[in-house]
């Protein structure tokens, strides 16, 4: 179990760094959505299903969708 969690944390860290350095903003938004999704999984393994539910529905779904809609209205490349 601890190996799975460590693996997930490293993926989370890598996608957070990628969200900072990416030129294409759409890729950055998807990477930040991945950070939220892995945070939700980690909350669930820490026995906090309430917070995990909120994080998965708001952080991973709605925030990503709102950013994608905003990118469609503005420019995609930074």
């Amino acid at each position, binding site marked *: 179990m601890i190996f799975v969690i460590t693996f997930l944390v490293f993926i989370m*860290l890598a996608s*957070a*760094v990628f969200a*900072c*350095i990416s030129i294409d903003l759409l890729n950055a938004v998807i990477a930040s959505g991945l950070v939220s999704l892995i945070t939700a999984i980690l909350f669930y393994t820490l026995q906090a*299903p*309430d917070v995990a*539910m*909120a994080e998965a*529905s*708001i952080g991973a*779904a*709605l925030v990503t*969708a*709102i950013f994608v*809609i*905003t990118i469609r*209205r503005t420019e995609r490349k930074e």
Partner: protein
Amino acid sequence: MRKIIAIILLFILFFAVLSSISKIPFGISKTKVGKYYINNGIEQTGAVNIVTSVVLNYRGMDTLGEVTVLFIGAIGVMAILSTITRKTEKKFTPSSSILSTGCKFLFPFILLFGSYIFLNGHLSPGGGFQGGAIIASAFLLKYLGCYEKRINEKKFKVTESLGGLAFILIGISGLIAGGYFLFNFLPKGTAGILLSGGIIPIIYIAIGFKVGAEISGIIDNLMEES
């Protein structure tokens, strides 16, 4: 240059959090108030889910603040987007019949799931905020997949205002009945059934409607106004 600063700040934050968390022993309660909630929460509030009893009963005022913060956020989005004038008239390509039929089929089930989440907030994990977000994701699906005509924006605003008003009215009636704001004046019932917990399910229904209408309103504004 800005990106390098951002990554450096990220790593500083990472090591700060790591160094502070590694000193705390994991899973051992350090305050007495948590133990008090776990021992007395069910009999004092009637809600089986301890998190809900804390969020809506012991710390109900904080939840009112959270709802207000979300309300201010929604108003800010509307205020910014209403200043932008539309440049060109948009035209939509209608979605294929498979996609639009699938969206129309899924839409009521997602609404039902969101309602289940906030109705069972005092029994199982979940609550008003989570259920409201799921309801808003149903509206997002409707806007993305089977767009036909704009959903009346006024109805979102009316639902949102009624939800917030219901929360405050329940709080004030607690003030009249029991002496302080958000007093649990209804009978608590048997713990573990749907009609238990006094005012907790009613407040969660109000919050669910309010949050769902608010986030749907933000999505509606982003899709339509700009």
